[in-house]
C-alpha cells in the first residue's frame, strides 16, 4: 500500500521525537546551505603562483616513479574534486602508488581577470606551471592529466608544446562539438550571444554556469539529488561522501568573460578545435601534432562531455600508442563515485605504470 493512502500523516498519538526532528532539521540545512565537510585534505606544498593560478605539489612518501603527473582541471568548479575526501581522493591514490603529483588550481578570477582567455591560461600560465613543476620534481619529462575542460586545455597545450611531455591522459574532455545535445540547442548562435553576455557581465557567475549544467537533467539534478539525500539521511547512512560532493557542486567559480565567450563561440558554436583553427598566442592548435602515448577516457552516462565528443581525439592524434576507454559512470561520479576505486583508478594506474619510469 502506498504511504500516500496509509492514514493521516501525523496521528495525534505520536509526534516525531527530538531525534527525528533533528534529522529533518539537518536535511533542511543541507538543502539550504549545502554540505559542509572538510575536503581537499591531502597535504600539499605551494610550488608556484601566478595571478590567481597556484601550482600545488603532493609529495609521495614512497616515490617509485620518475615521471611526475600534472593534473589540470577546468576553469569552472574547483580542482579539489581530485582530492575530495581521503577515502575518495584520486590524488591520495596516486601518491600512495608512488607518483609525484602536481595540481594546477586556476583560482577564483577577480574583475581584473575578466579579459583573460585561453591565450592566458594555455599559452602563459600552463607553460610556466610545467616549467616550475619540472624544476621542483627534478625530472625531464612528465605526464599531463586533464579532466573535463582541463583535458581539452591539456590536449591543446600538448599540441603546442610536445617537448618534455611523456604521456597525455584526458578524462571526460570534449574535443568534437558538432553534436553537443541540449547544449548545442541552447547555445546555438541564433539564440545565444556569448560575447554580449561576457561584455555585460565581465565575469560569468558560477550559478549561471551551474544552472546550465543542472538543466541538462533537471529532474535528476534538482529533485533526484534531494531524494537521494533524504533517503540516505533518514536511513541513518553515512553522509560524508554525499556532503563532500554536494559541497563541490555548489562551490563553483566565475568564468572569466573572455574565456567564456571563446569557449562558447569558438568551441561550441564553431567547432574550431577539431578543425585545427583555434589559435593560442597566434599559433594554431593542431591536435594531430600530439604524438605521445594517449589515454582518452569517456563516461557512458556523461551528459556534459558525451562519448561522441571525447572519442574523436584518438582519430586525430599522431600517437602510435593510444587508447580510448568507455567506462560506466557520469561526468563526476566516474572519478569520485563508489565504483571509481575498482573501475577507473586501477585502469589509469595500470596504463601509467607502464609509461612512467
Amino acid at each position, binding site marked *: 500500500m502506498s504511504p500516500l493512502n496509509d492514514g493521516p500523516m501525523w496521528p495525534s498519538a505520536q509526534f516525531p521525537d527530538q531525534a527525528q526532528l533533528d534529522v529533518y532539521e539537518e536535511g533542511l540545512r543541507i538543502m539550504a546551505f549545502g554540505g559542509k565537510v572538510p575536503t581537499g585534505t591531502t597535504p600539499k606544498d605551494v610550488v608556484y603562483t601566478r595571478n590567481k593560478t597556484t601550482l600545488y605539489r603532493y609529495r609521495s612518501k614512497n616515490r617509485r616513479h620518475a615521471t611526475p603527473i600534472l593534473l589540470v582541471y577546468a576553469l569552472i568548479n574547483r580542482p579539489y574534486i581530485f582530492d575530495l575526501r581521503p577515502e575518495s581522493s584520486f590524488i591520495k591514490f596516486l601518491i600512495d602508488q608512488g607518483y609525484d603529483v602536481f595540481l594546477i588550481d586556476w583560482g577564483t578570477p577577480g*574583475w581584473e581577470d575578466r579579459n583573460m582567455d585561453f591565450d592566458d591560461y594555455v599559452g602563459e600560465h600552463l607553460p*610556466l606551471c610545467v616549467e616550475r613543476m619540472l624544476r621542483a620534481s627534478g625530472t625531464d619529462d612528465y605526464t599531463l592529466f586533464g579532466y573535463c575542460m582541463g583535458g581539452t586545455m591539456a590536449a591543446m597545450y600538448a599540441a603546442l608544446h610536445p617537448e*618534455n611531455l611523456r604521456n597525455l591522459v584526458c578524462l571526460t574532455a570534449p574535443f568534437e562539438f558538432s553534436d553537443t545535445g541540449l547544449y548545442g540547442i541552447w547555445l546555438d548562435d541564433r539564440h545565444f550571444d556569448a560575447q554580449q553576455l561576457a*561584455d555585460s557581465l565581465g565575469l560569468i557567475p558560477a550559478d549561471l554556469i551551474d544552472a546550465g549544467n543542472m538543466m541538462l537533467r533537471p529532474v535528476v539534478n534538482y529533485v533526484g539529488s534531494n531524494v537521494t539525500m533524504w533517503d540516505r539521511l533518514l536511513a541513518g547512512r553515512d553522509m560524508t561522501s554525499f556532503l563532500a560532493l554536494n559541497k563541490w557542486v555548489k562551490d563553483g567559480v566565475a568564468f572569466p568573460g573572455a574565456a567564456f565567450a571563446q569557449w562558447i563561440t569558438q568551441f561550441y558554436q564553431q567547432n574550431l578545435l577539431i578543425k585545427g583553427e583555434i589559435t593560442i598566442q597566434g599559433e594554431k592548435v593542431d591536435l594531430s601534432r600530439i604524438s605521445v602515448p594517449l589515454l582518452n577516457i569517456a563516461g557512458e552516462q556523461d551528459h556534459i562531455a558525451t562519448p561522441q565528443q571525447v572519442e574523436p581525439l584518438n582519430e586525430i592524434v599522431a600517437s602510435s600508442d593510444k587508447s580510448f576507454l568507455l567506462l560506466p559512470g557520469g561526468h563526476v561520479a566516474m572519478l569520485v563515485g563508489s565504483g571509481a576505486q575498482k573501475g577507473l583508478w586501477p585502469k589509469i594506474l595500470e596504463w601509467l605504470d607502464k609509461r612512467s619510469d
Partner: protein
Amino acid sequence: MSTKPPPNPFEAFKAAYDQAAESWSKSMEQVLSSEDFAAAAGRMVARYADAQEALRQAAEATSDQLHLPTKDDLARVAELVLNLERKIDAATDKLFELSDSRPELPSLEVWTHIADRLAALEIAVKTFASMPATTTPASADPPVAAKTAPVAAKAPPSAATAPKQKQPARASRTRRTAPKE
C-alpha cells in the same frame, strides 16, 4: 487511539518521485530540447545581461559622483600588481637560465649559506665592538660575547660541510617556457 509510528512524509514523496521521475524527465526533455525553449532562454539571458550592465553603469556613475573607486579602478591597481608579478617571473626565468647555463656558478643554496655566515659574523663583530676595552691575557678564556654570539662562536662550517653546488642536472632540458611578457 493509534499507537503505530507516524508515516514518514519523505516516503510518500519518494514513492511519488520513483513513480513519476521517468515521465517527468521525458516531459522536461521535450520542452528543453525545443527551439522555442532555446529562443526564450536566449532572450531571457540577453535581458539579464542588459539589466546587469545597466546596474553596473549606474553603480559606476554613482561611485564617480561620490568620488569612490569603482571596480574598474581597483582592477587597474590589481593589473599593476600583476605586471610586477610578470616582471618577477621574467627575472626568475633569467636566473634559472643563468644557473642552468653556468653550472660552475654557486647555486642559490650556497649564496644563502654565505649570507647566513656573513650575518653571523656581523653580529659577532658588533658584539665585540660594544664590549668595554679590557686587557685579556692570551691564555684566558675567550670573551663571554664570543660564547654567546650566535653561529660565530660555533665552528664555522667548512667547505666540506657547505652545501654543494647545484649540479647541472637539468642543463640539458629543453627550454619550454616562452611567456609573452
